[in-house]
C-alpha cells in the first residue's frame, strides 16, 4: 500500500488556504444525521468535540477519567507558542514553521507544520475569547516569554499552569455543548476496541469502568485524541492512567504506526528516589533560563554541594556548548546529563542526578535589585534576600513543588534533576487531513505522529493539540463526511459490532483466568526497565536485539503468570491496568524494532553507532529521510512502509549548538 499524505498542491504558504476554500462541506441538516465519536478529552479531544458539536454534528465523547477536565493536558506547565509577533521581535508564521521543522531535526512534513504555524495565532484569539486568563502586562496586553530552540518571545502562558487554563477553556466549551445536547459525554469509559465495517471505522467498543460492562457505540467517523504512550517506560511525567490502548487497538485493525521510536526525554525532572517511585515530575524548561547545570569535576565525589568549590565544578553544558550553554534543546541537554552520570560524576544518593543551581542567579538578581534601591554597600545576606524574592516571583510554584517532593529547599541547596520520559513524537500515521490509514479513523494531538519530527520544541504540544481540534478537523472531517451523508446510522447489532465485542470479552476472560502469581504493576515495571535501559536515551543494535528477546519473554510470562484480583463486572482497576500493560508490551516491541531499523541518530533518537567524534547525534539524510510507518501483520510481525520526506522550502542542515 502506497502512503498518500494528501498534501495539497501549490506554494507552501497557500496550501491550507486553498484547501479550506475548496474542501467539500456538509449542510446543517445533514450534519445533524452524522454521528462522530471522540475518544479522549484533552486539548485535542475536548476542542474537537466542542467545535464539532457547535457545527451541528452528533458527538459522543469518551474519557477514562471521572471528568473530562482531568485529561493530562492539564499538567502542561510552560506555555503555548503562537506566531503573533506581539513583541515586534521579528516573529512570523514562517519563523515558527522553520523553528519547528529544524527543532524536529528535519523529520516532519513541511505542509503540516506550516499549517500549524498559520493557525497558531487563531488559537490565542479563541482562548482569550473563552476567558482563558493568560498572563498580562501592566498595559493590559498579553505577556510572552522565551522557550528553548527559538530566538523570539512567542510563548503565551498562565503562570506555570498554562495547560490547566487551556484545558479548562476547552472543557467549558465542551460542557456548553453537552448542555445544549450536541455532545453526549461518557466519563469513566475506556475504548477497548475499534469496529470497522467494509474497511471503514464505524464505531468502538468501550468498557464502563464503574460497572465493567461492555458497550457498543456507532459513529460515522471515529477520532482518537488519546495522547501519547510515554508510560511504556513505566516511569514518565505522564499521568498514571495515560495509555496506548486506543491507538494500539486501531493499529492492530490496520492503522499504520508512524515513527514509534521517537520519544522525548525531558532534561529537567525530579530524579527517582527509590523502587517505590510511581511517576516522575517535570520541572519546567523555563528554569534553564536562570539555573546553571553542573556536576563535580571529581569522579564519585560524595561531598555535599556547598563543600564543592567553584573551581571543582564542571558546568558541562556551558563547557560543551558555549553558544547555547544551559539553553540547548531538550534532546541535547538530556544526553549530556546521562553522559556525565554514566561516567561516574552523578550526584545525590542514587548518583543518577545533576545539579540545577540558582545561586548565581539569586546573586545576580540581588545585585540588580540592590542597585535599583541605591544600596551600594549591601551585605551578602541583603543581596541574597533581594535576589531570592526575584527568583520566587519567577519560579515560586515550581520551587514549592520541588520542596514538597524532595523535602529540600532549592533556594538554599541546588535542585537535583535528571532526564525523564515526557512526550512521544511518534503515533498513528495520519495524512494532511489527520486521517489514519483506516478510512474514517482520525488521530489528533499527541496520538498522531505528524508535526514534531524527531524532537518537539517546548510549548508546541499545546499548540498542536488545539490546532488539530479547533481549526483543522472541523474542515477536514467535513471534506470526508460530505461523501457519507447517505450512510444511515448502522445499528450496533451489526455482526461487526458483535464480533468486536466478543473478541474483547474473550480477551478479558483470558486475562482473568490466568490467575498467576505476579501483579500487573510488577510486569509494567519490568517492561519499563527494559525500555529505559535499551530503548531510552541511548540505543544500540546489540541492546535493541536483546530488548526484543526480553520483551517477547516478558509477554509470554505476562500471559501465563499475571494475577488480577476481583471480578470482571465491577470497578476493577487491576483489570483496567492489565489490559493497558498488555498493549504496552506489544508496543514496546514495535518501538525497539523501529529504533533498530533507524540506524541514524536524529532528535530524541540517539543510535550510539551514529555519532560524531565529539559525541553529537549524526543524521543520515541519504538513507533515513523518511517517516517509518509500520503495518501490523501478526503477533511480532510488522511491515515497514516509507513515506519519503520532501523539503521544498527548508534545506536540512546539521543542527549545531556549539
Amino acid at each position: 500500500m502506497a502512503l498518500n499524505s494528501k498534501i495539497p498542491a501549490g506554494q507552501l504558504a497557500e496550501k491550507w488556504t486553498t484547501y479550506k476554500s475548496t474542501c467539500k462541506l456538509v449542510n446543517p441538516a445533514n450534519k445533524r444525521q452524522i454521528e462522530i465519536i471522540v475518544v479522549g478529552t484533552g486539548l485535542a479531544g475536548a476542542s474537537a468535540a466542542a467545535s464539532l458539536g457547535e457545527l451541528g454534528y452528533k458527538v459522543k465523547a469518551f474519557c477514562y477519567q471521572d471528568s473530562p477536565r482531568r485529561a493530562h493536558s492539564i499538567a502542561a506547565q510552560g506555555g503555548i507558542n503562537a506566531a503573533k509577533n506581539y513583541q515586534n521581535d521579528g516573529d512570523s508564521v514562517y519563523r515558527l514553521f522553520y523553528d519547528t521543522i529544524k527543532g524536529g531535526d528535519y523529520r516532519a512534513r513541511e505542509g503540516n507544520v506550516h499549517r500549524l504555524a498559520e493557525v497558531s495565532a487563531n488559537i490565542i484569539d479563541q482562548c482569550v475569547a473563552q476567558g482563558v486568563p493568560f498572563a498580562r502586562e501592566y498595559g493590559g496586553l498579553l505577556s510572552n516569554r522565551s522557550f528553548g530552540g527559538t530566538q523570539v518571545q512567542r510563548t503565551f502562558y498562565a503562570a506555570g499552569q498554562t495547560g490547566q487554563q487551556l484545558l479548562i477553556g476547552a472543557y467549558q466549551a465542551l460542557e456548553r455543548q453537552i448542555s445544549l445536547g450536541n455532545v453526549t459525554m461518557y466519563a469513566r469509559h475506556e475504548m477497548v476496541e475499534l469496529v470497522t465495517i467494509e474497511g471503514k471505522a464505524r464505531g468502538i467498543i468501550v468498557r464502563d469502568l464503574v460497572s465493567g460492562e461492555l458497550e457498543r457505540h456507532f459513529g460515522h467517523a471515529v477520532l482518537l485524541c488519546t495522547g501519547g504512550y510515554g508510560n511504556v517506560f513505566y516511569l514518565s511525567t505522564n499521568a498514571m492512567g495515560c495509555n496506548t490502548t486506543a491507538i494500539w487497538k486501531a493499529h492492530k485493525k490496520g492503522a499504520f504506526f508512524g515513527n514509534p521510536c521517537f520519544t522525548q526525554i525531558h532534561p529537567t525532572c525530579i530524579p527517582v528516589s527509590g523502587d517505590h517511585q510511581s511517576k516522575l515530575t517535570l520541572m519546567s524548561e523555563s528554569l534553564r533560563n536562570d539555573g546553571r547545570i553542573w556536576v563535580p569535576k571529581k569522579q564519585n565525589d560524595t561531598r555535599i554541594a556547598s563543600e564543592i568549590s567553584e573551581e571543582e565544578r564542571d558546568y558541562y553544558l556551558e563547557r560543551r556548548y558555549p553558544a547555547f550553554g544551559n539553553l540547548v534543546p531538550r534532546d541535547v541537554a538530556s544526553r549530556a546529563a546521562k553522559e556525565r552520570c554514566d561516567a561516574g560524576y552523578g550526584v545525590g544518593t542514587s548518583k543518577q542526578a545533576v545539579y540545577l543551581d540558582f545561586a548565581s542567579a539569586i546573586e545576580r538578581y540581588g545585585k540588580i535589585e540592590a542597585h535599583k534601591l541605591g544600596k551600594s554597600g549591601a551585605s551578602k545576606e541583603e543581596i541574597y534576600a533581594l535576589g531570592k524574592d526575584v527568583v520566587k516571583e519567577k519560579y515560586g510554584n515550581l520551587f514549592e513543588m520541588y520542596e514538597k517532593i524532595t523535602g529540600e529547599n532549592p533556594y538554599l541547596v541546588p535542585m537535583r534533576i535528571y532526564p525523564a520520559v515526557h512526550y512521544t513524537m511518534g503515533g498513528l500515521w495520519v495524512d494532511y487531513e489527520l486521517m489514519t490509514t483506516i478510512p474514517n479513523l482520525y488521530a489528533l494531538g499527541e496520538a498522531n505522529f505528524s508535526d514534531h519530527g524527531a524532537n518537539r520544541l517546548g510549548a508546541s504540544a499545546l499548540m498542536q493539540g488545539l490546532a488539530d481540534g479547533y481549526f483543522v478537523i472541523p474542515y477536514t472531517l467535513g471534506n470526508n463526511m460530505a461523501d457519507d451523508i447517505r450512510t444511515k446510522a448502522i445499528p450496533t447489532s451489526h455482526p461487526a459490532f458483535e464480533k468486536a465485542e466478543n473478541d474483547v470479552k474473550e480477551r478479558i476472560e483470558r486475562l482473568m483466568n490466568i490467575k498467576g502469581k505476579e501483579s500487573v504493576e510488577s510486569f509494567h515495571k519490568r517492561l519499563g526497565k527494559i525500555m529505559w535501559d535499551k530503548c531510552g536515551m541511548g540505543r544500540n543494535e546489540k541492546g535493541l536485539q536483546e530488548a526484543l528477546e526480553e520483551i517477547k519473554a516478558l509477554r509470554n510470562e505476562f500471559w501465563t503468570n499475571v494475577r488480577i484480583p476481583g471480578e470482571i463486572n465491577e470497578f476493577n482497576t487491576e483489570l483496567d491496568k492489565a489490559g493497558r500493560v498488555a498493549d504496552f508490551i506489544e508496543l514496546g516491541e514495535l518501538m525497539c524494532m523501529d529504533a533498530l531499523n533507524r540506524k541514524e541518530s536524529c532528535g530524541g533518537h540517539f543510535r550510539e553507532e551514529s555519532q560524531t567524534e565529539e559525541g553529537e547525534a549524526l543524521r543520515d539524510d541519504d538513507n533515513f529521510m523518511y517517516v517509518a510507518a509500520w503495518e501490523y501483520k501478526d503477533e511480532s510481525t510488522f511491515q515497514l512502509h516509507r513515506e519519503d520526506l520532501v523539503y521544498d522550502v527548508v534545506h536540512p542542515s546539521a543542527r549545531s549548538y556549539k
Partner: protein
Amino acid sequence: MQHYNMNLTLKVWRQKNSKKTGNFETFYVKNISSEMSFLEMFDVLNEQLVSEGKEPIAFDHDCREGICGACSMYINGRAHGPWHQTTTCQLHMREYKDGDTIVVEPWRSHSFPVIKDLVVDRSAFDRIIAAGGYVSVNTGNAVDANCLPIEKEKADESFAAASCIGCGACVAACPNASAMLFVSAKVSHLALLPQGAPERRKRALDMVHQMDEEGFGSCTNIGACEAECPKGISLENIARLNREYIGSMLLGNS
C-alpha cells in the same frame, strides 16, 4: 534531609459499591520510606493485597503532581491530609513517623456518592459547569486577542480563581457539604473578565440553581473550604458570588 523507614497502621474505608454499606478495615504496612508520596504508600499496600490474593483499595488518582484534581482522600479528619495547600498526591510520608495510625476515608457528601472504597462520583461538578460555567463563544468567532486589554490586577485575580482543580475538597471539608467555593471560583473567574460580562447574571443564577438541584448544602461562612483548598481559592470568591447572585435576582437575568 535524613530519610527513614516506618511501620504504620492504616484504617481505610472499604465499600464494595454504591449499593453496599461500607466499613473500616485495618491494614499494616512495613518499611515505608519517608521519601514516598502518600499514594505511593497506598501502592505498596495494594501490591501487598494483590500478592495475598485480595482486592486492592480503589482510589482516584491520575497526574500525581497536584493539578488534575482526581485524588481525594480524607486523611485523619482532613481533606487531602495535614499539609497546607497540598493535594493528597503531593503529601509525602516524611509527615509521619514509625508507629503512626492513619485513618483514610472518601469524601463524605450526599452529592458525591461512593462508587467503591475511596472513589466517589463528582459528576455533579460537571453538571454545574454545564449549567453556565462558560463563555458562549463558538470556535472561529474570535477577534485578535490584544483587541481587548484587561487590567493586570483583574486578570491575575481571575487566574487565581481559575486555578481551582475541581477536586471537591471544599465540599468534603464543609460541615454543610456546600459547593459554594467551587461554584464561586468559576463565577469569579468569568465575572472578573470582560469576556464573561454579557452572561454574568444568568450564569450566577443558573449555576447556583444547578448546585441546589444537586443537593449541596448551604454556605454558613465557616471557612473550612478555604482552609482545606489545595489551591488556596479564597473565600472572597463566595462574597463575590453572593453579590452576583443577589444582583441578578434584583435586576433579572438579562
